[in-house]
């Protein structure tokens, strides 16, 4: 008699079930649902109506810097610039290109564009190579860096090149060799001012600019408002994509598995409910979906599908044995429920471990992820139980050979005939891949989080390629004690700081008040001017309280972390040797270089905790520590394999990567749990290890293969995501699941057998 049927028969009715309590008894909730089906149906209906009604309230947060928001000094300095000087996050760059841009006609088109930009509502400032001028010391006349009139036949490229030698703004904003120029505008989009860069207004502004541009100029846009707008748009389209592809895949997989519409629909219902509950939860609570949490509904959906399939298969087995529908539901919940419960606990632990990352975005992901996993567990116990309760009697339960049934005996033979070899292989493979864990570097490029085909990403690529990057980097310098900010002493100190900063990132890449002074204005005159100047202008140079100077530079967003750290440390330490203390360097590259290693480091730490806690929970629940310990290597191998592959491919460990690996661990360990659940049940039933191994592998292999394929199928939508982080998340989880399945079906049985052989029977707890 096949093991499944044998065991089903031996535990066919409630009260006769003698399986190990492997899930803390949480599956009992399903029995409660079964006891009050009408009440839970009403609750389910109300919850679905509330969730669906809240879907239009879904909000999307495109803040791709959120993972960098910490209490650390680097981030606080970054915020200080926004708060005390000016909100630079509203700056939008326009990359203007034309083959004839640096001809007398082309340059006038560029000037006209600049002038037209000044008239756009909400645009507070426009800066281009025409913005620069100086004061003639003799006459006091304003001398523009670029002449107001350019005569026909003028060699404009040479003219610009000469101007660039004298003038930093021209140097930064003009690229005659690339027929390109950069115009910077202060857009109206400022969260601090209550106008966040939502997609519609940002794209309306861009459209308006395109419409007023003289013919022949090609415009591309770059900057944080566009990044956020594009990120939000991608999140919205992703949510539709992930949901629709996920639903289609769930139904298709269920249909293929059961080859009948009824069971397919029943098994799809919990997964669909999981999506609605998770999305509805966002809508009802007003929690915005961000680029880290956008995949959670899909993950919840797929977990729910896999758990559903496990319970459904169990129910089907009982029904095929002739058990009445109600009793079959109870038995199925008691048999498959503990593993589902344990899966929920370990996956929730994996998500919860992100809270140790010490940052609000990670804590939110930890909470939302854990909640999504709990939802997927509860939803199966509610929706599947109710569905089977109401329509289970009408489902045909003729015996069909499960998919992949032939794999079970094959895998069982392998683990028993190659036990030593597989045990040795697990250790060797772990050791081979282990160095990758330590060799892989860390990086989090803001541009890598943007949809690759987005306007923002294109703009960033162009800006880096043509202008050497437009990521602002700042030095904050306290006004020397005993000086007023506008006196000569203070400005001389500022000049020294600017020189040191410029020495690090390039002389022509920094500007401060000293250049205003050098253009012909005394400190006194500058002070006079700033009295009436808008704060957005004065804030480019001096804090609102006039206690600190700001020196601004630009570097690529993708600046190497080590280089960024060196810039900050060298500039500050050289100033200190000159007796100038208190300088601080901040900006995205500094943030990324200091916060990302800390963040990835703490996430890796969290990952270790997730593994330790996951295995400890399995050990506690199964009361079989040896068996639990054996799960370590097979579930580490996929992750070490991925880290090594990334390292070999030259890919640094991004925040999305480590998140994917942690979630993947939580899910792959589920395979081990399902297997251990059955193995221990068989041992408990009196089988010896070898027989229990054979019988449990024969039973569980087809289900795990099917479940993994379902998981992969349900997650396939992530591979179509325009967000690289979502793609990476989905891709790495899929790879981890596939390799995890192989490892759990081959290495884990061998390790369990070896561990148990090496341990005297009396010392085994199970």
């Amino acid at each position, binding site marked *: 008699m096949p093991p499944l049927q044998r065991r089903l028969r031996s535990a066919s009715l409630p009260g006769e079930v003698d399986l190990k309590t492997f899930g803390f008894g949480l599956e009992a909730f399903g029995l409660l649902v079964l006891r009050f089906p009408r009440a839970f149906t009403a609750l389910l209906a109300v919850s679905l109506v509330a969730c669906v009604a809240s879907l239009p309230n879904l909000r999307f947060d495109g803040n791709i810097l959120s993972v960098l928001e910490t209490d650390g000094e680097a981030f606080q300095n970054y915020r200080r610039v926004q708060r005390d000087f000016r909100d630079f996050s509203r700056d939008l760059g326009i990359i203007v290109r034309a083959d004839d841009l640096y001809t007398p006609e082309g340059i006038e088109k560029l*000037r006209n564009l*600049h*002038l*037209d*930009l*000044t*008239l756009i509502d909400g*645009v*507070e*400032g*426009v*800066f*281009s190579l*025409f*913005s*620069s*001028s*100086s*004061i*003639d010391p003799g*006459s*006091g*006349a*304003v*001398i*523009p860096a670029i002449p*107001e009139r350019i005569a026909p036949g003028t060699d404009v490229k040479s003219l610009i090149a000469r101007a660039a030698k004298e*003038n*930093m*703004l021209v140097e930064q904003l003009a690229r005659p060799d690339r027929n390109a120029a950069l115009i910077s505008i202060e857009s109206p989009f400022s969260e601090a001012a209550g106008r966040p860069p939502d997609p519609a207004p940002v794209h309306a502004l861009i459209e308006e600019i395109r419409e007023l541009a003289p013919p022949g100029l090609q415009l591309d846009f770059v900057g944080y408002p566009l990044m956020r707008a594009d990120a939000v748009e991608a999140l919205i389209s992703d949510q539709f994509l992930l949901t629709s592809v996920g639903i289609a895949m769930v139904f298709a997989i269920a249909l293929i598995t059961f080859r009948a519409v009824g069971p397919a629909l029943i098994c799809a219902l919990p997964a669909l409910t999981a999506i609605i509950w998770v999305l509805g939860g966002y809508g009802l609570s007003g929690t915005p979906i961000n680029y880290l949490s956008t995949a959670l509904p899909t993950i919840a959906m797929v977990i729910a599908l896999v758990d559903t399939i496990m319970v459904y298969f169990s129910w089907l087995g009982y029904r095929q044995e002739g058990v009445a529908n109600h009793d079959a539901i109870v038995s199925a919940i008691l048999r498959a429920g503990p593993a589902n419960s344990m899966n929920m606990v370990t996956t929730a632990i994996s998500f919860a471990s992100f809270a140790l990352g010490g940052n609000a975005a990670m804590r939110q992901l930890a909470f939302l992820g854990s909640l999504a996993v709990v939802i997927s567990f509860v939803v199966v116990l509610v929706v599947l139980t109710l569905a089977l309760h109401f329509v289970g009697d009408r489902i045909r339960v003729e015996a069909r050979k499960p998919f992949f049934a032939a794999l079970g005996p094959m895998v069982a033979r392998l683990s028993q005939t190659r036990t030593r070899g597989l045990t040795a292989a697990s250790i060797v493979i772990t050791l081979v891949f282990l160095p990758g864990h330590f060799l892989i570097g860390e990086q989090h490029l803001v541009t890598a989080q943007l949809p690759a085909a987005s306007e923002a990403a294109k703009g960033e690529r162009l800006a880096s390629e043509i202008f050497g990057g437009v990521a602002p980097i700042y030095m904050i310098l306290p006004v020397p004690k005993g000086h007023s900010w506008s006196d000569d002493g203070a400005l001389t100190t500022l000049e020294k700081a600017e020189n040191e900063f410029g020495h690090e990132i390039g002389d022509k890449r920094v*500007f401060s008040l000293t*250049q*205003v002074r*050098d*253009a*012909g*204005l005394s400190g006194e*005159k*500058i002070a006079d*001017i*700033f009295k*009436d*100047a*808008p704060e957005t*202008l*004065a804030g480019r*140079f001096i804090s609102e309280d006039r206690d600190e100077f700001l020196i601004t530079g630009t570097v690529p967003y993708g600046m190497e972390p080590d280089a960024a750290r060196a810039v900050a440390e060298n500039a500050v330490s050289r100033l200190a040797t000159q007796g100038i203390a208190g300088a601080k360097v901040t900006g995205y590259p500094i943030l990324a270089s200091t916060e990302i290693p800390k963040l990835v480091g703490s996430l890796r730490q969290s990952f270790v905790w997730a593994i330790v806690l996951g295995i400890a929970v399995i050990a506690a629940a199964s009361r079989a520590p040896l068996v639990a310990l054996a799960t370590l290597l097979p579930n580490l191998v996929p992750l070490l394999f991925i880290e090594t592959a990334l390292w070999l491919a030259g890919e640094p460990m991004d925040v999305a990567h480590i998140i994917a690996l942690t979630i993947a661990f939580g899910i792959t360990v589920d395979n081990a749990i399902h297997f251990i659940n059955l193995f221990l049940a068989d041992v408990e039933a009196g089988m010896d290890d070898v027989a229990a191994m054979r019988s449990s592998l024969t039973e569980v292999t087809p289900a795990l293969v099917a479940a993994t394929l379902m998981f992969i199928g349900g997650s396939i939508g992530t591979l179509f995501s325009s967000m690289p982080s979502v793609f990476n998340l989905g891709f790495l989880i899929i790879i981890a699941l596939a390799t995890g399945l192989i490892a759990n079906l081959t290495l884990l049985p061998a390790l369990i057998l070896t561990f148990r052989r090496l341990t005297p029977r009396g010392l085994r707890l199970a």
Partner: protein
Amino acid sequence: MMEVRDLTGSAGRIAAIAALTLGALTAHAPAQTDGAEFLSAYAGEWRGSGETRPDPRSEPTRVTCRVSAIFDENAGALRNKGRCGTTRGTRDLNGTLRLDGANLTGDFLGQAAASGLVNPRARIDQNMIVSEAEVPDGAKMVRVRTFLTHPEDGSFRVQSQYFDRDANQWIVAGELEFTRQ
């Protein structure tokens, strides 16, 4: 790196001249009906471009403006909003020109833009608003005047001049042509 100076200094003066140019007026109108008719002709959306000098010593720079003017018949007032910009700065414009009996009071572009003007006065002469005032330039006061043509065929012109004492002649400081949008 002179955008600071230009935004607050040059552009301020540009705006002051523009204010005068566009009629920072406290003027005697020929008659209530005529005045109302005259002002109402400026109602509409206007876009202007041309040149103006940051100050008498500097070369003219390109300037562009947009003005949205609404004539309130009941109040006998022309309300204007808009913005002027050069490559070195911008200035929002906001003003009201009101008929007060036989007089015109208020200013076309608002106190902020007209604050640099001293003793502004105007008259309607030969189908133009002719405004005159003084504007401080260092320690000296420079006489400025502006001619604002009556809208015709969807456009009007503005020419501002300053008096060069050394040359003893009026010099064109700037000229803009506005077209109805």
